[in-house]
């Protein structure tokens, strides 16, 4: 079977530059929005899931949906500290951090509106447990003092949060002595200080959660079973830190997806119609040409193929352009409330190979669907009447 040369397809697109450009533009806009939505949902999940370390385990009150609604008392922390399955540091003490998580309001730089910020009181081992968190400005806070370290997202998004500045909450003033870089994870959107100081200031007698490292990650299930059989641990729930943070991202990510995909589905319909109009016009304008091609011996299938390829090319160029536009979004960071933790989480648009591939597949599908009917019409043309068309 003879195939219609690619150069023919290319030239026919070029001959109708303006129409081609308009169609490509339409597809590009749709793919831009589609990719943007996927990048946003991925960015959010990446931010929260990466927040957890694979070997860390978090202990929350049973059926607590987040650290904010969880309460764990000192007795439970003491039991765990003595437990064999908990990893020990060089000094032989348990790698366990007793933490308290609260929310305070700070003014945002951009909108001057109040935003909710998580504050996390931690104990001595916290930094050892989260090797991804580094102090990039200033120094770590000292335990037993009113010193705090702020995540870099907080420092960049909220007003009056700089090294040496003072924040007031819990009836006291707290000095910012350091800025932490948590590598784009959820900790970048938190303020850290001494758990005991926070609890005293807010008059809170219990912790929110306990985080510890397991001595042997392979033994997690046994450890969990043993702890859950312990009557002193009846009211708590033990899970991998990663699983906890994945759950935290679910509602918001699902919401972004449903909203975004619903909008892009409607959009893509519009873009397919755009491609269809262009291709129908292309077929109508080239009736004589198609007749000639058929007379020369090209088969119906080749004609169908040629018009389909033309449409898919339009869509692919548009898709590429849309992805390129969307790639510019990766420089943008947004901060949005995560209702599960009732505090703002800063995250970016994350471009991943998966997103690029999905966006391009999406574009090709639009091209095929939009181009199929016109291409079929071209293929069905009767040679004699096509040649006679004016």
């Amino acid at each position, binding site marked *: 079977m003879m195939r219609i040369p690619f150069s023919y397809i290319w030239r026919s697109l070029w001959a109708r530059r303006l129409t081609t450009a308009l169609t490509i533009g339409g597809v590009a806009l749709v793919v831009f929005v589609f990719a943007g939505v996927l990048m*946003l949902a991925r960015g959010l999940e990446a931010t929260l899931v990466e927040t957890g370390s694979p070997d860390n385990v978090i202990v929350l009150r049973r059926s607590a949906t987040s650290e904010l609604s969880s309460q764990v008392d000192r007795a439970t922390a003491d039991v765990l500290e003595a437990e064999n399955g908990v990893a020990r540091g060089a000094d032989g003490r348990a790698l366990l951090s007793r933490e308290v998580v609260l929310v305070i309001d700070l003014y945002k730089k951009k*909108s001057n509106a109040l935003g909710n910020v998580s504050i996390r009181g931690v104990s001595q081992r916290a930094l050892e447990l989260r090797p991804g968190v580094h102090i990039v400005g200033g120094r770590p806070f000292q335990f037993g003092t009113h010193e705090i370290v702020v995540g870099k997202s907080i420092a960049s998004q909220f007003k009056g949060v700089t090294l040496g500045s003072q924040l007031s909450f819990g009836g006291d003033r707290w000095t910012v002595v350091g800025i932490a870089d948590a590598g784009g994870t959820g900790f970048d959107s938190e303020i850290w200080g001494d758990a005991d100081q926070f609890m005293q200031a807010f008059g809170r007698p219990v912790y929110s959660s306990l985080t510890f490292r397991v001595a042997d990650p392979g033994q997690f299930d046994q450890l969990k079973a043993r702890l859950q059989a312990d009557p002193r641990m009846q009211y708590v729930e033990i899970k991998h830190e990663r699983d906890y943070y994945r759950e935290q991202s679910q509602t918001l990510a699902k919401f972004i997806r449903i909203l975004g995909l619903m909008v892009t589905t409607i959009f893509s319909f519009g873009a397919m119609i755009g491609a269809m109009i262009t291709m129908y016009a292309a077929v109508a304008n080239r009736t004589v040409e198609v007749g000639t091609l058929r007379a020369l011996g090209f088969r119906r299938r080749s004609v169908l193929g040629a018009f389909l390829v033309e449409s898919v090319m339009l869509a692919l160029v548009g898709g590429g352009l849309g992805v390129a536009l969307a790639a510019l979004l990766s420089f943008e960071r947004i901060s949005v*409330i995560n209702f599960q933790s009732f505090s703002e989480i800063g995250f970016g648009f994350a471009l991943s190979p998966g997103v690029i591939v999905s966006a391009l597949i999406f574009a090709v599908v639009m091209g095929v669907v939009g181009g199929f009917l016109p291409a079929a019409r071209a293929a069905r043309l009767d040679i004699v009447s096509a040649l006679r068309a004016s």
Partner: protein
Amino acid sequence: MKLLRLVFKNLSRHRLRTALTMLGIATAVMAFGLIRTIVGAWNAGVTGASANRMITRHRVSLIFPLPLPYRQEIARVPGVTAVSWGNWFGGVYGDPNDFKNFWARFSVDSTYFDLYPEFQVPPDQLAAFKKERDACIIGRKLAQQHGFKLGDVITMEGDIFPGRWQWVVRGIYTGRDPSTDETQMFFHYDYLYEQVKAREPGRPVDAGWYVLRVGSPDAMARVAATVDSMFVNSRAPTKTESEREFQQSFVQMSSAIITSLQVVSVVIIGIILLVLANTIVMSVRERTREYAVLKTLGFSGRHLVTLVFGEALVISLTGGVVGLLLTFPIVQGFAKALPTFFPVINVAPLTVALGIGAALLAGLAAAAVPANRVVRMPIVVGLRTVG
């Protein structure tokens, strides 16, 4: 009038193309309407806020409670005519990953409904609610979504207040205004207090926030200043603001999503424009010779411009109207897909106007360049064109 007939004749030359273009525009206008409606739904709390209510909450964050004795002190402030309070309960009902199972649950003081006349509870139901400690009142929409009836028992797992909780539905309220949230659930603060005292002795149960009714909206600034200054040096300093500002701060939390939705709605207008411009450019190019012939026959530039614009506007406005008609069912579908996330979702008249406006604007913009080209084109060049 003759020209209008010519416009329709032109439109019917490529019926499929005309229909497809209208459909494309209809789709885009529908998406535009949907997005505007969603943004509107986000703001429903602000729109529904009463002009004579204020909210007093903990200065540091809403998550911190306020002591109960504040109530008497706030009630004494001149300008305040009534005070009530509420508390966020949270809780997990059924599968937490199903959006349907999330709705606002508050424990409130029995005076709460006096301050919220827009929650209309039949008097006998309200009386029954007040008589029973474990009674609750739910919104009409919530009752509909879950099939809750009067006398049904609602059971859920507590998170902020652990344990198993049960309430009997004794009242179903309806909203007075279209902007009233009909998906909330209220139960007695006293019940919460009792239960927590029994389950976790020693745990304080305070008020989450106070609702203040003021005599006139002008008194708000003074009331806010007075209330906040009373507690400034206490363990729980307050922040008092109008209900509108309070709701606004919730909307602000998601401002990034709203901004991106607004960007998307502008992108949609771009798409309408591209689809329409494509069709018009095509039609005009195909008819270059005809236009030249019309010119030789004595039709002026104005006639030709009317032809091109007429064609664009008929397509865009038809598409726009169809799109708006489609907006209503799609909004319904969306409300079904994400129930309770947007308690109040209505297509606003302004959205309808803007949708038509966007179609009109796109029609004008799409016709401008081709019309200009037709007018400027010398007759000879036009006649010589090969289509």
